[in-house]
């Protein structure tokens, strides 16, 4: 074990660059998967015919596949699919964001749907009978109450997203885990110090998120 060597200024800077990439990927994936997940969740909650059945199949498939497979698929298989002469190729970070978004949007759509379903039907009926349209009832009555209940499961989903960004090492995305792996490659004596430091970094970021979620929970309850 060589702590001094492992924590050299260059290595620390390299890890920080990795952390920046991790946070960048996580930020965009959280934002996109939240928006898409909300849209899918609402469509399935409203039971829009045909669309919601199709989405149900897609969500079930995505939720039941390993994320690693989706990352591989987006990076290597999709560029090979040729639809009407259109080909999709992504840079590594873009591919990682797309893969994470696909997987997490499916997860988040279930959180959103469960949150909306937990609001008693009477609320919607009361809103409708006092003259609100179904979209108005959703927007003004169901969503504000549902969102509050969704906060804890949403935050824990975001935490797992942040952890899952590490799976992108498999496509050599230069994020925290990948850079850690490279430093460990310099010397086996670095493995324990670096893994400990990286664990602390992930822990601090994620634990802060979960503390914020607990705060929100007690405030809104």
């Amino acid at each position, binding site marked *: 074990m060589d702590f001094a060597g492992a924590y050299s200024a260059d290595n620390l800077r390299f890890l920080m660059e990795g952390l920046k990439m991790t946070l960048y990927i996580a930020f965009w994936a959280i934002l996109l998967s939240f928006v898409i997940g909300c849209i899918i969740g609402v469509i399935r909650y409203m039971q829009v015919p045909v669309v919601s059945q199709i989405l149900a199949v897609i969500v079930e498939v995505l939720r039941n*596949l390993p994320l690693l497979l989706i990352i591989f698929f987006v990076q290597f*298989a999709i560029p090979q699919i040729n639809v009407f002469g259109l080909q999709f190729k992504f840079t590594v970070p873009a591919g990682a964001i797309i893969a994470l978004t696909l997987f997490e949007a499916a997860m988040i759509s279930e959180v959103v749907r469960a949150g909306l379903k937990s609001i008693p039907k009477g609320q919607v009926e009361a809103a409708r009978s006092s003259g609100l349209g179904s979209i108005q009832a959703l927007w003004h009555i169901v969503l504000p109450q549902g969102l509050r209940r969704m906060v804890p499961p949403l935050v824990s989903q975001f935490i797992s997203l942040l952890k899952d960004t*590490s799976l992108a090492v498999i496509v050599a995305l230069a994020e925290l885990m990948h850079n850690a792996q490279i430093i460990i490659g310099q010397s086996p004596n670095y493995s324990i110090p670096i*893994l400990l430091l990286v664990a602390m970094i992930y*822990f601090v970021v994620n634990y802060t998120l979960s503390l914020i979620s607990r705060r929100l929970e007690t405030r809104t309850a």
Partner: protein
Amino acid sequence: MIDFSILVNYFPYYIEGFLNTILASVLALIGSFVLGSILAVFRITGVKPLQWIGTAYVEFVRNIPLLLIVFFFWYALPTFGMRLDGFQAGTVGLTIYTAAFIAEAIRAGILSVPKGQMEAARSSGMTYVQAMLHVVLPQAIKLVIPPLSNQFINLIKNSSVLTVVAGLDLMYFADKVNGDSYATVSAYVFAGLFYLVLTLPMSYGSHVLERRLAKSS
């Protein structure tokens, strides 16, 4: 686009990976159930040092990536003179990681059993352990089964991290099929189907189970 000859030609690869994925998931499930139960009991005994250990374990492990734990067994253990192969490192990592989630599920189950049950059992002469085993746990198990089955589905999906340390799982072999045949789309689509064969019936089953348990209580 999808070439079925890939499935036929590389069938032994897929089956070997499939079986290894199941083996890793089952071993990790058993291990993490045992470890998770111990941690859950640690957290509720009221003995302070045990409680701290349990809480620290759960909070720490839940907030770091699974891959990091696997890397620990893969990269760091050899410096102590212990060398695990990819399958072993991956399975041990999965066990350590999943135990934290199972501990939480079990703890929530036990806490949901009313206190009076434990008190009644104790006052009728049972020891703490007897009361736990015969009175509290049988009631808690009902609430623990749905989250446990969810954890098992997660385990199957998470076992794909074995690929990163060459752990011979389904995903690893899918990668190999891709490398051999260059039929990238087919190689991964068939791997996906193998995963779905495992996970879809289980997630359907756990839905049904959850509904039935909710009705019976």
